[in-house]
């Protein structure tokens, strides 16, 4: 009788354990995992089959050896670097100024940082091209201030860096602003001033180092946006990685798959680094 009771209790325990497994949660999660992982697997699988019946990295080797790949990838990286630096130079002092001296400007500045949502890449590039393909004149006269930016290379470089800065504006500003709030820049500044530091010293040696995490996270996000970007790059005619990848897809099959998978890994590394530095939620950005 006792052993029967023990068996019953054991059975009840197993049942209780099973009842506690959240069936539907697992169902949705596994479904989601399948949806997300299958395309990655398909791309990887395809990219490894360049040589007939052999799983190999031929596609990767071919792709990375292409001189155009190196050229455009390098170009995009340099573009990203310039965008990041220019963004930091523009945004950090502005955010700092607003925190310390001009809180009244906060609302309008935050409104401006929301505008890129309303003006997606395709619209932005439309406007940029139309404005900067004619010379910039003083209104109502014929005096030319600037040749049309779109007609010379450095001009388009300037345009695209500016365009990328606009696209990254919401994230960069929010990141920097939050970083400054967390670190309480006001108190830091007052402490530095009481020790005799001038403005330049304060920004470069006190503020910037303390918002490092925020800067890194904003920089990595900008990097992720810029390297794969296609819309601005192709319409402005710059030799960036995005248009190169697209063109490659018109002529070849395996190399684009290889580069796509590689770019996914690159994005993963960038976002992973962001997680590392901020330890928080992931951020959503990017041109679609």
């Amino acid at each position: 009788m006792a052993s029967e009771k023990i068996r019953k209790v054991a059975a009840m325990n197993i049942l209780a354990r099973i009842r506690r497994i959240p069936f539907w949660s697992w169902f949705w999660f596994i479904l989601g995992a399948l949806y997300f992982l299958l395309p990655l697997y398909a791309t990887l699988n395809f990219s490894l089959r360049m040589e007939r019946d052999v799983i190999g990295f031929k596609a990767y080797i071919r792709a990375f050896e292409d001189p155009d790949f190196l050229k455009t990838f390098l170009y995009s990286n340099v573009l990203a670097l310039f965008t990041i630096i220019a963004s930091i130079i523009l945004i950090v002092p502005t955010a700092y100024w607003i925190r310390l001296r001009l809180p009244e400007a906060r609302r309008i500045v935050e409104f401006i940082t929301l505008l890129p949502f309303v003006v997606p890449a395709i619209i932005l590039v439309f406007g940029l091209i139309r404005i900067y393909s004619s010379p910039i004149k003083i209104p109502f006269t014929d005096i030319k201030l600037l040749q049309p930016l779109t007609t010379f290379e450095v001009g388009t470089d300037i345009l695209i860096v500016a365009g990328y800065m606009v696209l990254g504006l919401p994230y960069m500003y929010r990141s920097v602003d939050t970083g400054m709030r967390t670190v309480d820049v006001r108190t830091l500044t007052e402490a530095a001033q009481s020790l005799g530091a001038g403005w330049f010293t304060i920004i470069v040696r006190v503020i910037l180092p303390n918002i490092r995490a925020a800067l890194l996270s904003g920089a990595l996000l900008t990097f992720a946006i810029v390297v794969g970007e296609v819309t601005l790059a192709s319409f402005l005619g710059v030799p960036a990685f995005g248009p190169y990848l697209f063109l490659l897809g018109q002529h070849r099959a395996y190399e684009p798959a290889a580069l796509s998978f590689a770019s996914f890994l690159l994005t993963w590394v960038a976002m992973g680094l962001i997680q590392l530095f901020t330890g928080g939620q992931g951020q959503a950005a990017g041109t679609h």
Partner: protein
Amino acid sequence: MAQTALNKKGSSPASDWKKWIGVFPFFLFAILFLVLPSLRLFVGSFTNAEGQFTIANILQLFQEQSILDAYWLSIRISAATALGGGIFGFLLAYSVTVGGLPKPLRSALITFSGVASNFAGVPLAFAFIATLGRTGFVTALIKNLFGVNLYQQTDFDLYSFWGLSLTYMYFQFPLMVLIMAPALDGLKREWREAAENLGASTTQYWLRVALPVLLPSILGSMILLFGNAFGAYATAYALTGGRLGIITIQIGAQIRGDVLHNPGLGYAMAMGMVVVMAISLIGYSWLQKRSERWLR
């Protein structure tokens, strides 16, 4: 806000003006590269071929069938992916928060969502071609497992409305997860316990308390998803090569060459897009504020 020792001068008009110097570079940048381009489009949409003011372009937006079709197609895709992405994204976020899956799965999902929501454009299109294209992995899988040839026996085509929608989901689901996970965390455990204590079953709790509290957040996120899909260009172009006539693709064609033979109309199309995006952003912001009130 209190004035600090940094600002020794009083509030005289002269120093008020000086205060704004610090934000001048930012405003200049915004004007040059954000406001002016948008303004150019705005003004252009009200300009006719002779350079005079007209509202004919705007009117024509609503008369030109091809344009209306483009808007309608974009709206349908955006709505479909907003709804589908919203619902499934919510269920995913639910499963790793309230749904009780182990903690590591939650971090994995959140990290992956951060990555996936940025993995759009050309690589995403190629990935889906490799998956569901004519020689795609899943296409072959379905043929082998179920004997069904996707492209011959069904209406399915990756380079169509449903194909593009399915592709868009890849960044819509994660966006929803990233927004809803914190919102679901905001559901206090005590609410469920209080409801249970007062006699409610789990279903009653969800219907009467949890879902109503989450509703502004859910709706707001779906609106954001809508805007997100509406403004997308690169993925669609890379996937369908411009064959699918959504509004962003039409605008792209217009930029390359004045296919409409009416620049003003092109600008009007762009402005129409901006209006839709603005409405979506306003809707999202308003709902976000309401949800913050409850999920403090």
